[in-house]
């Protein structure tokens, strides 16, 4: 029996210094022997590298920014659907997830599948809700509070010791050693990501992460633990290695079984010198280092597509330890005709 033909739209083609997960998600799907996928790229910016990479997307369409609202997004998706007959969409940005979750049933009614967390799951794991999350599920989280204004933050900082972490609502985090530095980061983050800005205790330790996939019924379909080996000035892993840390995997199982998490997720953790694990963030989507999981033996993007298509999926039970990923940058040479076509017509 041949591979099943399927058309999947994917966002997050921005393979830049703070990379989106779209490109490695597509690589995973393309390696599937179950699916023969036609990939439709959905892009926000004309220069997202994934649009131009050879053998990656079959066609790309520009879509409106999340700030334009879900109706504008739906309208554009329907235009694309009419031409491409989409079977599934995999959104890969935190900032767009709210709209996609809200549109889930409307998309489903049009025959387009997604496999996303529920709105409740999405909301309760927000950075700003982390203390309540830690209490509810019995997991260690650093002390953190939301600041809605500079005065608010200055007041909050009275009960914190420096250094502190100042974090954006969706992305970016900076360490601050003084109130002046904190104020500078606050302005930058609120301008970029809006409010609230999060003030969080700085926890000293080793940064470790888990990528996972929950089936929405409490079962972990895939989970791989990784230690960051090289971290860029943007806090992104540029190299990492799979590790056999039972405590990290147990924590993942605990969270997914308690919350009945549906979809991909990333746990950002810190292991302290006294061997305690703290959850810094729970990202509600597949992370950009997903291809390491594929390389270690768990094709998480393929499993996600199978779940969305209602197929039976057996949970992965192990993965290769000591597999590494090392990112690199690569200059592509692109004819300006392709760029101009995308800019003028919104598709390529």
């Amino acid at each position, binding site marked *: 029996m041949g591979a099943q033909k399927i058309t999947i739209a994917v966002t997050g083609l921005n393979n830049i210094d703070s990379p989106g997960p779209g490109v490695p998600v597509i690589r995973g799907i393309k390696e599937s022997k179950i699916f023969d996928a036609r990939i439709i790229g959905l892009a926000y910016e004309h220069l997202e590298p994934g649009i131009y990479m050879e053998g990656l997307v079959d066609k790309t369409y520009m879509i409106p920014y999340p700030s334009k609202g879900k109706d504008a997004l739906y309208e554009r998706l329907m235009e694309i659907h009419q031409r491409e007959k989409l079977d599934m969409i995999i959104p890969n940005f935190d900032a767009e997830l709210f709209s996609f979750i809200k549109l889930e049933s409307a998309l489903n009614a049009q025959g387009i599948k997604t496999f996303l967390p529920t709105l409740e799951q999405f909301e309760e794991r927000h950075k700003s809700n982390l203390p309540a999350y830690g209490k509810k599920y019995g997991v260690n989280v650093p002390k953190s509070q939301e600041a809605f204004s500079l005065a608010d933050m200055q007041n909050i900082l009275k009960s914190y010791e420096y250094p502190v972490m100042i974090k954006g609502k969706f992305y970016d985090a900076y360490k601050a050693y003084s109130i002046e530095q904190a104020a500078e980061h606050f302005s930058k983050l609120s301008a970029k990501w809006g409010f609230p800005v999060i003030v969080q205790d700085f926890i000293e330790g*080793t940064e*470790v992460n888990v990528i996972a996939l929950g089936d929405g019924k409490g079962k972990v379909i895939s989970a791989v633990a990784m*230690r960051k080996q090289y971290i860029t000035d943007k806090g992104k892993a540029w190299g990492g*290695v799979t*590790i*056999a840390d039972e405590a990290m995997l147990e924590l993942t199982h605990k969270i997914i079984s308690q919350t009945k998490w549906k979809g991909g997720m990333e746990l950002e953790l810190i292991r302290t010198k006294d061997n305690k694990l703290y959850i810094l963030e729970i990202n509600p989507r597949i992370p950009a280092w997903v291809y390491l999981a594929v390389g270690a033996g768990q094709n998480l993007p393929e499993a996600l597509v199978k779940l969305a298509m209602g197929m039976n999926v057996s949970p992965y039970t192990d993965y290769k330890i000591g597999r590494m990923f090392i990112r690199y940058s690569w200059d592509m040479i692109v004819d300006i005709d392709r760029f101009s076509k995308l800019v003028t017509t919104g598709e390529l």
Partner: protein
Amino acid sequence: MKVKENIAISDNGFVFNPTTGDSFTLNNTGKEILLLIKGGKSMGEIKTTLLSSYDMDETTLDRYLLDFVSELRFNNLIDE
């Protein structure tokens, strides 16, 4: 004293802790000592082996060996 479970020691002296993701490089002497510990040798036996292979007095060996073992312990490579 024993090397923690799963610690991988390659022929070229590269040591990988699969639980933490830490990696280290050892020179030949360091690798020899770690392999002796892994082989279940006591500190006394390790000292005897090293004294027979290297031109070194016991006091100097003691100093370097204790220092090295405490580094192994600090980096979570051995258990008591």
